[in-house]
């Protein structure tokens, strides 16, 4: 690879190899030092179950997900009744990637993100926060789904 300096002269890569090496070293140190925020969906299920003090149940989780709770939307209104497929935002039409971890391995790996969306979406669907038991049931059910 040839590098051209500002005044137009060619410079050999070897003159800048130390910069590449330093950058890689910094990256490596940072990658090791950063606390791992990612958990598995199973970890999050265990956390909600512990918080609720109950055993999560998939069947009630499914029912909870597909019914309307006295208002305009169900979870399924955006996420579909079997979220191994893409969903669609009920107002904006924006595509929503599948919720089932088997169909979308990113799901439920970031607790802060999970909590943020539960907060928002439970407010929309139920006009209240979901309980830990409800979250656990829903997650238990989602974990049973295979694409």
């Amino acid at each position: 690879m040839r590098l051209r300096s500002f005044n137009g002269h060619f410079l050999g890569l070897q003159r800048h190899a130390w910069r590449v090496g330093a950058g890689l070293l910094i990256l490596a140190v940072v990658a090791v030092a950063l606390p791992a925020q990612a958990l598995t969906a199973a970890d999050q299920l265990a956390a909600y179950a512990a918080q609720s003090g109950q055993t999560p149940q998939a069947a009630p989780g499914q029912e909870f997900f597909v019914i309307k709770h006295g208002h305009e939307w169900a979870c399924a209104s955006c996420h579909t009744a079997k979220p191994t497929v893409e969903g669609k935002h009920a107002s904006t039409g924006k595509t929503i990637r599948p919720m089932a971890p088997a169909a979308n391995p990113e799901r439920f790996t970031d607790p802060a993100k999970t909590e943020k969306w539960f907060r928002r979406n439970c407010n929309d669907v139920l006009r209240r926060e979901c309980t830990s038991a409800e979250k656990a049931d829903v997650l238990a059910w989602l974990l049973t789904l295979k694409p």
Partner: protein
Amino acid sequence: MRTALLIGLSALGFASGALADFGRSNPAPLPIYKTECAACHIAYPAGMLSAPSWQQLMIGLTKHFGTDASLDAATAKPISTWLQANAGTGRRFSDAPPDNRISKSSWFVRQHDEVSVAVFKRASVGGAANCGACHGHAAEGNFNEHEVRIPK
């Protein structure tokens, strides 16, 4: 000579204001704005609303056009700061649109005065807030009117 220059520059300034189609002058969105505010719709350019409008939207996120879009304070702060710094300014933003809704801004209505209500209602378009339906590069902040394709 100087008068001509002044007239020329004023004309340019006036023209760019009147014709601003957000196609060429959008700053790249703050990454966290894109992450947090483009989950349900496109990342509307900060220049499309005034600073006071953005402020009201950020305060009222639990009731964001019919849904809860709330953010924790730590996440909201840099977004608000960026919006305030990049908000639209000048005469066209002197009046806030109803509900701080971009598609009800007088500039938006003027820019789309050739698009009938019926067109906005088409299923393929999905309303005036769904810029991407006709502006294929809206997600990148490009609304160039020469690249508009209105679906049937």
